[in-house]
């Protein structure tokens, strides 16, 4: 194991010699690195802050409408869900992607133009949408 050399007690530290041009260059580099680190930390803090705000807003009620169909093969895969994707257009014009899985489950993505709101009421309303789930005896 090697031990890095150290300056003897009382000797001058060449890194602190203002007449040393290499020391000045080093100080400049260190200052530059500190500034870079500071800017990076500030940027990270801003990103985290915005992420937290966005998460808080999302966990509330509103969510931006998302267009397009996600490809199940790349975005809906976990240890129990794998298989092949198929895509078809339903009678009501919505696009549906289906993921046939290997554990007796089926993943589907549908695409329509429905937005989101903060409504929360126990009484249901009439609907003309095509339901993806049915409530019935089981």
């Amino acid at each position, binding site marked *: 194991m090697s031990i890095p050399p150290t300056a003897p007690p009382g000797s001058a530290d060449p890194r602190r010699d203002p007449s040393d041009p290499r020391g000045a260059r080093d100080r400049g580099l260190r200052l530059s690195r500190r500034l870079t680190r500071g800017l990076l930390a500030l940027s990270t803090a801003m990103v985290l802050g915005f992420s937290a705000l966005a998460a808080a807003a999302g966990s509330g009620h509103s969510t931006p409408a998302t267009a397009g169909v996600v490809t199940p093969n790349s975005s809906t895969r976990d240890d129990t869900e794998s298989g092949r994707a198929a895509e078809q257009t339903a009678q009501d014009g919505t696009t549906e992607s289906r993921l046939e899985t290997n554990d007796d489950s089926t993943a589907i993505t549908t695409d329509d133009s429905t937005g989101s709101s903060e409504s929360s009421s126990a009484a249901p309303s009439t609907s003309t949408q095509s339901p993806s789930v049915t409530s*019935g*005896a089981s």
Partner: protein
Amino acid sequence: MSVGIVRWRALGTTAELLVTDPTTLVRARAAVGERLDEIDRACSRFRPDSELTRLSTTAGAGPQPVSPTLLDAVRAALVAAERTDGAVDPTLGRSIAAAGYDRSFERLTDDPRPFVPRPGGDWRGIRVDAAAGTVSLPAGTVLDLGATAKGLAADRAARAAARAIGRGGVLVSLGGDVAVAGAIPAAGWPVGIAADHRDADPPTVVAIHGGGLATSGLTVRRWRRGGRTLHHVLDPRTGEPVPAVWRTVSVAARDCATAETYATAALVWGPGAAGRLDAVGVAARLVADDGDVTVTGGWPADAAPRTPVGRAA
């Protein structure tokens, strides 16, 4: 808006998960699966290794330590019993097993032996000590949380999924018992209403904007015992299957456990159910055995209702 959907088998029925952001489907699926596994391990009546099975074997032996999941499930069942004056009774396990429903429904076979019913009512003797984490059952009690655990599981799973994905909305359906959490689509979550949750072309569609929706019925889980056709909704006063006044009852409420509670209670209440649901203030749709439809509590009328809206049976 894109909607991601995944379906799989869980708790002896079909589990369905919908998310408003398909990119969150995997995380939501994992969260729901975790909650359903917890409920199954704690509350299954058909697993010899479940906590519920073990707890029932200790009936009469004083307070028993249980997991928080089972403690919550027992408490939810007792709340349901209180709210319905005992119409939804978690202590009918012995009677439903005597009727032959002592294994998962797919494994039931016709049994020529006679059915000897046993009334419920023992729920008043159950003691839950939340601080100590214990449950005490009266001697001879066999728990059956089937009327409430599925709704509770849907609620917990939907909330867990919403927390896991952090944004967007979630719908969880367990055999047609539906809970939603997180963001609600502007037009609500469309849910078909049918006698059987497997109906892919339901005759009625409603949109829910929060809470939960559940349907109970007498037409799906039926089997033969002692020369009789039985079903799984028992009258706690007698232990016998309730008479077929209502074919199905659908209820929307602030959560799925509440909806499931009143949907089952209505089948037990029989002819007075619509009035009692109206008094409670939950939105409900009741389909009589002859097909007549009655709605209460703000449930929208069918496109062509066969009876006036709000008619109490």
